[in-house]
């Protein structure tokens, strides 16, 4: 494991990117930060800009307008290594928007994804469990 990756796992800062979601997944992410779940105790916090973040949380069924921007954000603005987490059915497979005229591609055809958290929306517990699994996976202990 590279030094940067090891340092990243200690206290991953997350950036939340909504690519055309219904808001519920985004609200559940914010919920994780508030007192009941409080993931800040694990050193995770919401970063204001992707340039400060180690982990990208992507929600929503990428539509035509956001597709280009998501790719741009990931390729041009994100410092690497960066872990990408897809949250919610929409980001996994487009969910029930799979037939929509404005959602042509699933997210993992656009940017590489490290872990998928299913649910519509996933509960905050599921999001936390997913992040822990990702960290363990990267550490090689899973």
């Amino acid at each position, binding site marked *: 494991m590279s030094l940067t990756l090891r340092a990243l796992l200690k206290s991953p800062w997350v950036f939340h990117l*909504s690519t055309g979601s219904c808001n519920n997944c985004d609200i559940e992410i914010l919920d994780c930060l508030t007192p009941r779940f409080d993931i800040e105790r694990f050193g995770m916090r919401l970063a204001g800009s992707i340039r400060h973040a180690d982990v990208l949380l992507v929600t929503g069924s990428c539509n035509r307008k956001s597709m280009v921007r998501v790719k741009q954000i990931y390729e041009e603005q994100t410092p690497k290594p960066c872990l990408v987490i897809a949250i919610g059915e929409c980001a996994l497979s487009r969910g029930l928007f799979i037939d929509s005229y404005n959602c*042509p591609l699933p997210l993992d055809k656009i940017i590489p994804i490290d872990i998928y958290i299913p649910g519509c929306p996933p509960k905050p517990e599921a999001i936390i469990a997913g992040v822990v699994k990702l960290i363990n996976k990267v550490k090689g202990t899973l």
Partner: protein
Amino acid sequence: MAKSVITIGPYHPLQEEPELFRLTIEGEKVLNIDVMVGYNHRGIEKLSESRTFDQATFVIERICGICSTSHPFAYTRAVEDIIGLEVPERAKYIRTIVAEIERIHSHLLWMGLAGHFLGYNTVYMWVWKLREEILDVLEALTGNRNNYAMFKPGGVRRDINPDDISFVLKKIDGILPTIEMLKKAILDDPVLHARLKGIGTFTREEAIDYCALGPTSRASGVARDVRKDTAYGAYDRIDWDMIVTENGDVFDKAVIRILETYESVKIVKTCLQNLPGGEIDLNITSIPPGEGIGAHEAPRGETFHYVRSDGTNRPVRHKVRAPTFMNLPTLKATVPGCTISDATIILAAIDPCYCCTERMVAVRSPEGDLLYNGDDLVRLSQEKTASIMKRMGIK
């Protein structure tokens, strides 16, 4: 002084949803505002037309996560309007209960985010902690924290278990002291007074001209609320007050939302205590040809749905008008003239929800002919996807 332009978004830490604001500024002063949306458009109206009437309820629910009761409420009312039937009394009460609990959760969510926008993170954390209690109630009643799937044309999908009633009443009573404390903390705070009073004032005339809805219009003294204006659900069987204030500034919009939370608590409690017995669902088997409209007062204002049926099991046309669609243009009246630091909270004060608002536009020539028909749009859409994929190097 030279003019410059500030762009906020589309992916900005302040906003949950992607949208782009362009503020034209001169020094500190905002001269003009331009809003660009479309990052959330998923073609829900079209999707709903490809589902059966029952399935469409689930699609409609996912228009917006915060209003996942309001849209189905308006939609089922539109379908029931086609058939011309009244849902059973118990279903009406259950619908009202879920809708009002959702209003409490939505207003609390707004309060928290508004605190966050103002840099008052204590309020944000307190309110969101309180909101969890409401989500517990929703989970107990509907089985889900969000996207409740309670509604279906003709009634509700799930009954309220008598054992749950005491739990819900206890929880709701339990949050009242905290709301009271928050009300005092927010409304008596001299810093918030200085920060919010007289900011982004929206006059009564403007509210009428812009057709503003919900708390945005009620804060300016326009007493308009679908729950009072048309009798539906259990709203006409219960005693509750419409909250109206006069000043139209950001502070008044906050006051409206806080006081409405109390009214919603009152409505939920009365409904639970007087829950009538009987059927919860009419088991509709067919829907005749015709058209119907349905409206519901969502936390942000009136949601309006139009459904046309041709006698088959799918809607031929489904039109949705969400409240933010009407409230967003009001920024043109409130933002110009303010300073940049006030602009954020004025933008947030209408409690915007962009995922409800985004629309596809059909293009007409000045003579009124449609320049694009359905086939043209499909062709355009395929060409555009192909070109994006080519540009991005996706096979």
